């Protein structure tokens, strides 16, 4: 069992700090940038949420298809415009 507080300076704690600020918290727009030799070229703005088939099927009207059921909702806290 290892116990640690965020003020510690070891590598694992630093990685954990990074993990917190890079993956949690309010997101206005999530994106991924792929760059080539330092030049930003490709921007992926992902608004689609992955969901399980069962959850999607539960939301289907009778006789509906899966394509119609996948949510295309805006990410939470999305700024309009």
């Amino acid at each position, binding site marked *: *069992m290892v*116990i*640690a*507080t*965020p*003020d510690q300076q070891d590598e694992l704690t630093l990685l*954990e700090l990074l993990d917190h600020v890079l993956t*949690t918290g309010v997101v206005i727009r999530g994106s991924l940038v792929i760059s080539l030799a330092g030049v930003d070229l490709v921007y992926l703005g992902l608004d689609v949420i992955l969901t399980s088939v069962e959850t999607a099927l539960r939301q289907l009207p009778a006789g509906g298809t899966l394509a119609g059921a996948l949510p295309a909702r805006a990410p939470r806290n999305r700024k309009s415009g």
Partner: protein
Amino acid sequence: MLAYCITETEPDIQVASVGLEGHAIRSLTESGLRCFISDYGKEAAGKPVRESALTFSRVLQDIFGQLAIIPFCFPTLLPSEAEIAGFVRENADEYRKTLSRLRDSVQMDVHISLPEQKLEAGDESGTDYLKKRLSRHQHLERVAEELRRAAQPWIQDWRQREVAAGMRGHALVARGLAASFLEKMAGIEIPAGFHVRVTGPWPAAEFLKEK
């Protein structure tokens, strides 16, 4: 403009840390909330993520040491203060409720890992493979449950999710009890083969939404 976090307007606090590139941390007040920001210029964009993110997290820790925060993911960049104020205004009701609910609470993280077994030569059946994965999953759930039960008196809420290395549990704990929570966890015996790491206190980022 780089956004750091949102807090209530009381108590008034002092931020000792500086932001990225030595820019001062300031706050704007909007709809009964305070949002901490700093300038963000082109020179910051060229710097390594690790250094910038660590500076950012130190500012968060500074503010969080004094009151509850809703952190922004790093980096959250907006063109102007007006845009930030607008964003806060749009979500003010939700954020006020969240901060009120989490005012005196902190998040403690419990990382449970179980090293993956080496890949078999490929002789096992598909069913055996899935059963092995199921058994691993159930084992992790049992250990998570044991830890959760041991910490029950401290826990206001608990969320957990499976990750590649094992399981992550997040406990919502009263701020004043963070230290004794860690003490309690330190004394718990862990089953052989498992590795557990307990850290905190953190801002309650996993509890922003009421489940």
